[in-house]
């Protein structure tokens, strides 16, 4: 609703105008430019590049690993959030703050460190690879490990406030009606937490799909086997194949936007399901 005449508080035109110009120059026009560039080629050309064998393999690696990592994160993220809210232990505040490490640690640092840890002679790798014979670094499992690291805070920070908001009366009511603790968890708590858990899962997945820095060191980057889409975009750029890079970027962009839309819908749903309760999704990539 707009008022034709004056507004009491100053700065509306200035602040909105500045925001719009800034966003347009920095975000909208560049994104439009990417779409415009891809529109210069024919549909057949676009399709051929987008579905080339190496590209398809890259999508498979990217989305497969991201999905696996997001599933692991949904499970452990819920666990960590639960433990942080419900249990008292020494150093809890320290652990709570520490969960945000992946937000604060540059991805390149995470990349080289995880690689060193999981390499055949690394602290973890010497047992997993040396003893069990299972190769993590320089193979797809390494990508999953990096993506778990990157994504875990998303789930914890999304689920944690919802657990904090659960009123103890709900569980007491379930118990008074004869439910066991396990039944209470599955039938009462999990459905309450589900929207937040799904949102955290989607955020973690969305971040993992676009991730580059932490993955390239540990992945091994073998075309068709352990090459992620962002890396393929870069290698096309390095071969001066701007058109090819643009096509892959558009594909990733469309998928990201669909994910963003899905996440927004999820949050809307979660916020409206619990009437009036504010669900803070804590998106801070």
């Amino acid at each position: 609703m707009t008022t034709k005449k004056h507004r009491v508080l100053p700065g509306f035109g200035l602040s909105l105008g500045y925001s719009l110009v800034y966003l347009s120059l920095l975000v909208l026009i560049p994104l439009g430019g990417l779409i415009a560039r891809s529109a210069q080629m024919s549909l057949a050309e676009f399709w051929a590049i987008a579905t080339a064998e190496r590209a398809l393999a890259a999508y498979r690696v990217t989305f497969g690993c991201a999905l696996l990592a997001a599933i692991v994160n949904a499970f452990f993220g819920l666990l960590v959030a639960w433990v942080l809210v419900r249990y008292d232990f020494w150093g809890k505040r320290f652990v709570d703050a520490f969960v945000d490490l992946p937000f604060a640690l540059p991805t390149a640092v995470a990349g080289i460190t995880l690689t060193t840890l999981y390499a055949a002679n690394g602290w973890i790798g010497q047992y997993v690879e040396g003893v069990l014979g299972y190769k993590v670094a320089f193979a797809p499992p390494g990508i999953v490990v990096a993506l778990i690291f990157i994504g875990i805070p998303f789930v914890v920070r999304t689920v944690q406030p919802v657990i904090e908001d659960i009123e103890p009366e709900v569980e007491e009511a379930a118990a008074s009606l004869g439910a066991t603790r396990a039944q209470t968890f599955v039938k009462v708590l999990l459905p309450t937490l589900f929207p937040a858990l799904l949102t955290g899962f989607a955020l973690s997945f969305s971040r993992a799909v676009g991730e580059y820095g932490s993955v390239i060191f540990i992945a091994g980057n073998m075309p068709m086997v352990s090459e992620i889409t962002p890396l393929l975009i870069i290698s096309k750029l390095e071969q001066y194949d701007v058109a090819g890079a643009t096509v892959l970027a558009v594909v990733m962009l469309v998928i990201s936007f669909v994910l963003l839309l899905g996440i927004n819908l999820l949050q809307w749903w979660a916020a409206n399901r619990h009437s009036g309760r504010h669900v803070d999704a804590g998106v801070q990539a």
Partner: protein
Amino acid sequence: MSAVRRVNSESRPVRWALLTLAFLFLFLFLGLPLLAVFAEALRQGFGPYAAALAEPDTLAAIRLTVVVALLVLPLNLVFGVAAAWAIAKFDFRGKSLLTTLIDLPFAVSPVVAGLLFILIFGRQGWFGPWLAEHDIKIIFALPGMIIATMFITVPYIARELIPLMQAQGKDEEEAAVSLGASGWQMFRRVSLPNIKWGLLYGVILANARAMGEFGAVSVVSGHVRGETNTLPLHVEILYNEYNSVGAFAAASVLGLLALVTLLAKTVVEWRMARETAMLNAELPPEKTDK
């Protein structure tokens, strides 16, 4: 201690199992990597570590990282405050669309973000020929790295401020205006003190991301040692040259940055929680006279 188990708690063995599992996970995936950064950096002792840090290229990379952050943060700070002011204090058509647009960079892969600016300023880009003609270098140079970092960190400050300013409402600002304050006086004396912790929180997060950004900057940087290498890019170069101590020494600086970030973030969160608690506290008992 009462013998009756609390209803809304798990049995002791289950509790211990869950705690152990959570700790094991956090240690393996977060604790061990952080330890490894410093362990690898100091693998050959303190001497080589200090020497690696004192490398001119490493120092140049640290300098460039700080320069980029110092240039990017004020711009995004002004944007964040402006956007939050418009969104939180006024009603207008398309407000939720604007809010979504601000979040957009979160959904874009850093590599794609870098590519966006190559398409505009690169040799084959829109302004490429014009820039080449006038001998202006944006891509593979500092301006490109700054623009890419700006893109990546656009949402951070705005996202912190919008919910905070919405929750505070506009009563205090209206009161200031009705008492005769000018726009600037109102903002500086009333609005700014109310959002200072949220602002600082956003700056801390944006700074961590700006200093640590790898993918987007990597695409638009020329990777010239000592010139267009930020610290994360320098880590990559050293690592790929099998200079493990050098790479991890540089990485340890970023690791320290992460620890400082976490500490500052926690302190600010604590301050903010204290302020909200103070505001939501029960009113003191009513006393109408002395």
